[in-house]
């Protein structure tokens, strides 16, 4: 596998890329992700204005294509005359940063605990899994609100709170996979030969965990983006002067009747981010899972045959 892998990596990478392109929704999703990441990363260079710059003479200016709008503020301005486009570009930084940090931290906690529980089994397993059960039964956003209510809102708080409330999925997935993998002949053989537990875990078990973990963490990333937006919208997440899409929707809500663009554009930004990541995640799931690939192939074939019969 490794020898072949090395000699074919180049070819496999190009064919993977071609496979992505042949799946239109996934290709659109991937392109949008790249676009969003680039736009937010280079927000200070691209954004026409400073997102905190107030201009009271240009308050509540509508977007370009509506009467009274101008090219100066393409997506209009808010109640303090701040440029909506610049705020969306900068707001993306906070959203993506929180999403990324939280996913990585939660993944790390979940994998360590899942490996520990799944590999050791016995008492360690039952204690750890009871902790997971208890945490899962505590209500999501309500628990976040409770914690934020005690220690106070802010970006760091958001990252910590969201990681602490989201690691359980990974732990459950890793544990169940490790438990079933330990029964397989090749892991038993490795143990019989005298591999130390660390080697068994990292060389023999962990590679099998990467595809499902990859899909799960991409999907969890979207959940975290949505959770962050919701908590910020409620006013307990990111605090001004920091910018977040959820927060901007909340401030725009007071002007809903006279300036719809304050709510619409940050909201669309959230939806578009989540949608593109979901499209991409779906493709990753199908591509990394041999069974799913087979099923996709069979389904395509069946669909083609059916079409051939009906015509």
């Amino acid at each position, binding site marked *: 596998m490794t020898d072949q892998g090395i000699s074919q990596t180049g070819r496999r990478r190009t064919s993977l890329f071609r496979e992505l392109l042949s799946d239109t929704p996934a290709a659109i999703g991937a392109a949008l992700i790249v676009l969003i990441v680039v736009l937010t990363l280079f927000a200070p260079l691209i954004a026409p204005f400073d997102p905190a710059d107030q201009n009271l003479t240009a308050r509540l200016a509508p977007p370009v294509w509506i009467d009274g709008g101008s090219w100066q503020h393409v997506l209009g301005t808010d109640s303090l005359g701040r440029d909506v486009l610049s705020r969306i570009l900068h707001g993306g930084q906070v959203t993506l940063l929180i999403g990324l940090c939280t996913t990585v931290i939660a993944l790390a906690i979940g994998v360590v605990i899942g490996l520990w529980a799944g590999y050791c089994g016995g008492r360690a397993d039952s204690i750890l899994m009871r902790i997971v059960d208890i945490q899962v039964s505590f209500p999501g956003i*309500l628990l976040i609100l409770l914690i934020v209510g005690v220690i106070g809102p802010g970006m760091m708080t958001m990252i910590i709170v969201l990681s602490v409330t989201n690691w359980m999925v990974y732990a459950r997935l890793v544990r169940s996979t490790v438990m079933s993998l330990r029964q397989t002949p090749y892991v038993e053989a490795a143990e019989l030969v005298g591999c130390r537990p660390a080697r068994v875990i990292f060389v023999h078990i962990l590679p099998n965990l990467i595809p499902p973990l990859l899909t799960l963490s991409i999907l969890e990333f979207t959940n975290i983006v949505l959770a962050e937006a919701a908590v910020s919208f409620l006013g307990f997440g990111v605090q001004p002067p920091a910018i977040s899409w*959820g927060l901007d929707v909340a401030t725009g809500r007071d002007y809903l009747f006279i300036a719809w663009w304050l709510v619409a554009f940050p909201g669309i930004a959230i939806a578009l981010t989540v949608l593109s990541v979901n499209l991409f995640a779906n493709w990753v799931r199908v591509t990394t899972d041999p069974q799913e690939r087979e099923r996709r192939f069979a389904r395509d074939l069946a*669909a083609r045959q059916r079409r051939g019969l009906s015509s």
Partner: protein
Amino acid sequence: MVQLWAFAVDMVTLDFGDSLWQRRPAVEVVFERLPNTLLLIAASLAFAILVAIPLGAIAALRPGGFLDRLTMSIGLIGLATPQFFLGLVFIMVFAVQLKWLPTSGFGTAAHLVLPALTLAITPLARFTLMVRSSMIEELNQPYVRTARAKGMGRARILRVHTLRNILVPFMNLSAWELIVALSGYTVVVETVFAWPGLGHTAVQAIQRGDLFLMQAIVFTIAFMTVFITLLIDVASKLIDPRIKLN
């Protein structure tokens, strides 16, 4: 230790202390608001289930067809849209532009429509995608071919055979949606529509620093979560005798 014991006794007797904000026992506030939340969730989940099953089934009949692609795309967009944004869009369209329904508040059936619809979209999308994918799987099973060979109509196969087989996973998913709605979605939707339920109360409690009330709400919901999970385990056993309870 003494404190922990006193705390545990208080929990069991449902004594969460007095709400600092409303100056009365926190349990009283919880039980006053809980029915409103349950009404909202019941309306939205019922709507989602009733729409999702036929929608998913129709999409599954012709995988890759036009209707299938349409439902899939709308479903994915529904999953990606945050509820607070969806709620505000509904207010903008149905309440401000068309003036069909009230923007927010509580009282008549008309007040229930927009919040319930907003709350229903995410579960609706998830249900439809789930029904579709498991239907496609079931329709490729040998028993469906046998039933077709017997000359059974497609509608009857869907209703009698495949629907029963996807009932258990579907029920698990609905229970999960119910829990998620209880523990998070309602907070957002109730706040957007000023619906006097538990979620809206929770937000107000935190804004006023009323941790006793907040604690009472969180424990009530956690208890309900455990209860629903147990109930579903028993119910799946009733539907599918192959499942073993340990």
